[in-house]
């Protein structure tokens, strides 16, 4: 089962992401964002890149994390199709992005940006949840 669900707003789109741990939540939010952006060519060569992002709060960290991944696609043509070894300690995330070249993706939506609209990370007995809206 996917760790995210897509929803619509008047002009844009968003995802409800969840995860058993905070790191799972961040992974699923990233995979949800990539799902909105397009479908990767399964035959494309895969590479890996280590990433680290920090912020002053968990919510701001989620905003900066997704914004950084969006930048890597739009500015560096690196489209993520997986994440490995994600850890979050003291509002600092480190992870390994598995990516393919941006021209090997069947694009769906051009996301302009990650928004902070009602961005909140909620804790529940089965883990963590967040709703993230993207400007299209």
């Amino acid at each position: 089962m996917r760790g995210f669900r897509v929803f619509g707003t008047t002009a844009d789109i968003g995802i409800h992401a969840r995860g058993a741990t905070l790191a799972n939540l961040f992974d699923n939010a990233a995979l949800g964002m990539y799902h909105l952006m397009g479908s990767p060519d399964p035959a494309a060569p895969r590479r890996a890149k280590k990433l680290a992002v920090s912020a002053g709060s968990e919510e701001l960290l989620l905003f900066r994390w997704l914004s950084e991944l969006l930048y890597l696609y739009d500015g560096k043509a690196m489209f993520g199709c997986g994440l490995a070894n994600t850890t979050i300690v003291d509002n600092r995330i480190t992870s390994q992005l598995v990516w393919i070249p941006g021209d090997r993706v069947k694009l769906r939506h051009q996301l302009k940006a990650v928004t902070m609209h009602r961005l909140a990370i909620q804790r529940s007995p089965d883990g963590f949840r967040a709703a993230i809206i993207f400007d299209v």
Partner: protein
Amino acid sequence: MSAHIPLEKISQFKYRIPSSFRPFMRVPAVVYASPELLEKIREDQSLMQVCNSASLPGIVGCAIAMPDMHFGYGLPIGGVVATDWDSGVVSPGGVGFDINCGVRLCRTNLMRSEINEKKHLIADMLYRMVPSGVGSKGKVKLSKSDLQRACRMGSKFAVERGMGEQRDIEVTEAGGSVPWADPEIPSDHAYDRGKAQLGTLGSGNHFLEVQYVDEIFDEEIAASFGLHKDQITVMIHSGSRGFGHQVCTDFLGRMSAAMHKYGIDVPDRQLACVPIKSPEGREYLGAMAAAANYAWANRQILMHLARDAFMQALSVGPKALGMDLIYDHAHNIVKKEQHIIDGKRTTVAVHRKGATRSFPPGHPDIPPRYSSTGQPTLIPGDMGRCSYVLAGIASSMSESFGTTCHGAGRVMSRSAAVKACRGRAIHRELEDQGIIVRSADIVTIKEEMPEAYKDVSEVVRVCHEAGLSRRVARLKPMAVVKG
């Protein structure tokens, strides 16, 4: 979803939400709408968003919403907020991610009857020559220093490279360049995103449209704008692409973290703001202006590409084509302007997000050639109905800081639009109405279906009747390239 928000009717198309509605509101909110539009406006959270924006420190007058308002981030789309330049704040959420998203309208010497049989050819050529759609890349490779030059010079950057004329600059808002741009401030991320996207239309609701003048409402002003019935016009809607999106993203993060330093608290994190005169505020304004200038360079290049496409498709020269710019303006920007507040001339930062500056006759900030008519104001509708040309009028200065609407405004989500299209071929329906649509992606055409938008004619009627702008001409689409 906004049924609980109290709206006091002030006049036929003007409603007020008192500042007592929420403790954080420093001023009242004013909404321009008809009962029909209000019904749709109440379906999303945009009325609450305009109330939230009334909390910005240093806000003057009232928080204002145009009749095409809908849900946005921070300020709603269609929102206008002015803050005192000396004591107020600046908010990236009051401008939006697509800094200087705007509209450009060109006249031509062509008549509807001359191109009606050739519109497929024109649409195909425009689609081939103007990069558009998700992931599109510009035809010119630019270094960072080239891009910094574009961010400083705006439209002039393109004109200097042979992509336009000096007269284009004269009829572009702010001469196509905000002078206080500081290209050193935007991050390397912004330059990485912007380097391949200059001269691209983008995706979503961005478009290039071939239209004809369907109706003239004010003969004298239309003639001054160079418009007459059945004439072909070309409208371009685009912005600052990934460059501007990244500038907004960077400063949203920075301001969100910096707000507490200035003792600022806002009801919506997306309204993050800092004092205009703080280091973060000054830097945002410098970066925002750089992105605004990028957008003006972008639309100037797009116009040049469109002109070439017409010349190739019709085998005509530039003189015969006569594609000249009528006007170009932003509808997502913050500008330093002077307005009369409580009887006193005051310098303010006017945030317009999905709202268009529409200055009246005689205003010093509009081109001399329009000093007797008022500023041309370009209002795109959806791809199936029509667009409008309006003119600025004096009453808008006291009503809305010289502002009018920016378009039709969405009424349906993208997923709802796709769902509503099930079993329908929107591009064929439009072709049956005589409108040729070209887009790389059939889903975009569904998402942008005419019913997904409010009726722009009703939006424009409200602006006309409420004294925000004057109706001049109506344009109908013949061929559309969707981003």
